[in-house]
């Protein structure tokens, strides 16, 4: 019997490249100096720095709440009157007002996308934002359906508040989240007139996983438990008169369950822990399709056990994972396809490129298949190989060229000083060592000999000197390599 894959990596094996791997996966990578600091903290110290963070203050997003506020009773009465008497001018004013507010709200959503992206680029607590992104893909809610940017922000804050906290509390928060309740028609689900949308996704996508443990009948019963939710402006309220307070039978348990109570019934099933463990595994360790190795399956089982033991508190579970042999196994490096957001944020944070224009970068993220606040469906992003196709590969390569060199004569130049300083010993950087280091640093894995040879030949071809222009050129080539899309 081999060692437990979740047993800790021996501290002596926690080298610079392991620290780099940890920072990439638990965050968005870092500069050589940042990796050095992490490595110096030792494995436990490094994991603690990433996982046991103080929540970052919610810096001013400059968002305002009421752009899409519901109509007041007075406004409704006025419009009803206008409709009655055929007062077209008033009706048209109202339509126009609504169109204007929709436009302002879309602008606000764009500014929130920039705000969140900027947080990911600058945060001292990268795991907080990374888990916020994880939950955004898990409890996926699309802005176009709900058309209220303030509610998208509220949901984003909910994810951040529970980023590495109790996953059950987050689920309870989701049942009180106006964005999700509206997205899945929770307010239409009433006693005697059920709407199963929220109940179905709760079982299938949020807690248990498709086909795990439940039947169609359980979905109907859970829908009954969830009746009575309503949205009052920015708050989800409970309307007892719309709630079905009869006895329900869910997964073999019977009771007059409310929404919160039925959540406990669901989370008590072992499938809940296994489902979340599998998702965390694909997000943090390896997202290759196909049959899993024995160690991978043991790791997922171990994570599920830890989730149950820690009552779904994620911080201690993630700490164990990030310190484990399996997480640091060379076979699990370069084993995840970077999401478009990971690609962008990691490039900015680890290469130290100027951040460029965030709107432009986020448009490119859309084109690579990841629109913040607009996942393709309630299933979230498929991730893995689904990110990669003929069209997205060129966008991925070209956005890196854009980050490195910008556009137009006034673009900020790539500041290569930190890399040159890192590469310089007593004299100027050595070309062989530079090629080796840049490949290893960018790819996170041992470079293939063919890549090493080709890049070395290129550097020789262009004068065999290491300076900013040549570093930019080599980085442009390295970031276009197929394996650069992996982390």
């Amino acid at each position, binding site marked *: 019997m081999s060692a437990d894959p979740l047993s800790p990596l021996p501290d002596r094996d926690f080298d610079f490249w392991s620290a780099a791997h940890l920072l990439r996966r638990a965050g968005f990578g870092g500069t050589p100096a940042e990796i050095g600091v992490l490595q110096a903290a030792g494995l436990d110290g490094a994991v603690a720095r990433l996982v046991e963070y103080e929540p970052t203050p919610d810096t001013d997003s400059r968002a305002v709440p009421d752009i899409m506020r519901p109509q007041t009773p007075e406004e409704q009465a006025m419009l009803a009157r206008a409709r009655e008497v055929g007062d077209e001018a008033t009706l048209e004013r109202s339509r126009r007002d609504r169109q204007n507010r929709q436009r302002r709200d879309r602008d606000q959503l764009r500014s929130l996308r920039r705000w969140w992206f900027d947080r990911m680029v600058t945060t001292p607590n990268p795991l907080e934002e990374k888990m916020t992104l994880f939950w955004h893909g898990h409890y996926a809610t699309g802005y176009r359906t709900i058309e209220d940017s303030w509610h998208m922000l509220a949901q984003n804050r909910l994810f951040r508040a529970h980023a590495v906290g109790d996953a059950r509390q987050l689920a309870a928060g989701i049942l009180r989240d106006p964005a999700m309740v509206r997205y899945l028609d929770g307010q239409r689900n009433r006693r005697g007139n059920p709407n199963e949308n929220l109940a179905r996704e709760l079982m299938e996508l949020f807690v248990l996983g498709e086909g795990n443990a439940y039947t169609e009948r359980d979905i109907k019963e859970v829908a009954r438990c969830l009746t009575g939710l309503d949205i009052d402006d920015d708050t989800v309220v409970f309307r007892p008169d719309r709630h079905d307070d009869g006895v329900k039978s869910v997964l073999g348990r019977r009771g007059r369950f409310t929404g919160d109570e039925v959540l406990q019934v669901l989370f008590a099933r072992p499938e809940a822990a296994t489902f979340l463990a599998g998702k965390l595994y694909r997000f943090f360790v390896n997202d290759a399709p196909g049959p899993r190795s024995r160690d991978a399956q043991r790791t997922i089982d171990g994570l599920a056990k830890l989730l149950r033991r820690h009552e779904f508190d994620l911080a201690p579970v993630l700490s164990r994972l990030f310190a484990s042999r399996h997480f640091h196994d060379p076979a699990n490096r370069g084993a995840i396809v970077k999401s478009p957001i990971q690609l962008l944020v990691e490039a900015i944070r680890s290469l130290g490129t100027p951040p460029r224009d965030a709107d432009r970068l986020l448009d490119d993220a859309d084109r690579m298949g990841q629109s913040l606040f607009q996942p393709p469906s309630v299933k979230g992003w498929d991730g893995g190989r689904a990110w990669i196709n003929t069209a997205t590969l060129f966008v991925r390569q070209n956005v890196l060229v854009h980050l490195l060199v910008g556009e137009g004569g006034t673009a900020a130049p790539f500041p290569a000083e930190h890399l040159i300083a890192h590469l310089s010993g007593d004299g100027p950087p050595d070309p062989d060592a530079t090629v080796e280091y840049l490949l290893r640093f960018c790819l996170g894995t041992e470079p293939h000999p063919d890549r090493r040879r080709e890049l070395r030949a290129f550097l020789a*071809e262009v004068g065999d000197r290491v300076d900013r222009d040549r570093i930019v050129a080599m980085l442009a080539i390295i970031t276009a390599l197929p394996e650069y899309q992996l982390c």
Partner: protein
Amino acid sequence: MTDDHRSFSRRELLHRGVALASTVATVPWFVENAAFGLAPDAATPTRTPGADRILVIVQLGGGNDGLNTVVPYFSDDYRRLRPRLAIGAPGDEGPGGTALPLDANAGLGLHPSLTGLRDLHDRGLLGVVQGVGYPNPNRSHFASMDIWQTGRTDGQGTGWLGRYFDARCHGTPEPQAAIALGRDAPLSLVGDVQKPIAFEDERLFRWRGEDLHPAMKAPYEAAVRAGALPGVDPDSQAAYLMRTSLDAQVSSDRIRAAVQRASATPYPGGALAGQLRLVGAMIRDELPTRVYYVSMGGFDTHGGQLGSHANLMRQVGDAIAAFQTDIDSQGMQDQVLTMVFSEFGRRVAENGSAGTDHGTAAPVFLIGSKARPGVIGHHPSLVDLDGGDLKHTLDFRSVYAGILAGWFQVDPRPILGAEHPAATLVV
């Protein structure tokens, strides 16, 4: 069924190709596809029905004013509700000009600037499907476009043509099956497995790093065209990326070579004509592409729309007419069908600024030698309105079903659900 041993052997070879990825690493997926029967090949007698047919979709973004595109001059209410915008019957001058004849019996005409479509109509190449929409219309551009593109009234999930390709390709995507001209890939073409190629300008459909220094091209090409490198586990993410990288290069080469050759047919100016010119070039170059997608914006005519809408109509009609001429000159008229749609029409009554606000049902055009010619279906009533909006007379999914069944010759029900009978749109 004429489906044959060839497609079986193709699957078998593809399967073996996967197993031998390290040795066949330099053969990109779609070259294998082409080699085993998907490329156009006129000499092949046994062919999957509908497999060599091409659909071109023209999206009019912003909500095209259907009532001033196909003019219902039969209706006094049309003139009454549009005192500043109505287009007169042929021979009759309205504030918006005089309609071109389309169907005198039905009392329908075409916008005066749609001379291009009128010529296609005169040659029996134009079908006008009336009153296309869906229940509980959504008046948000984005939401309604999502609904049209997914073929679902909740606007969520994969695209309708993406699902068509997914059903066709048995888990192996065809990299060039769907090509969109424009910055963003339209949701219509996105399946779970199938992903479209989208490019705005063929010059951008390549690595821009090579512009930085001439010496950069060689190491780039060596790396991205190498396929899966020796020693790399063929099932790994790295090997997958290396193979897809080679696919991307070959697609880029092929597409750029196709569109860089000059067209024999003159096209007018304007963005839509430019896109259709590229589509014509790719068809001439026999790309294995089944769906091309082009789009044009600017149809959100809330104010002073007479001049701007006339200009849009001119561009649409002239561009499509030129494209059809191009297709005819290639002898491809029986293999290409064009569909023109918008996410919604506009309100029946004009607004206070001589424009129109977001509405509901509108006509869809089908163009080609196999398009059922003439006016199809029923025009929505201009009297029996729903809060000032037209009630649709045909669900858009029946149009899609008609295309899937009549053009691509597949069962539309797994793709669109069973509740929307296929309209007869193809002859």
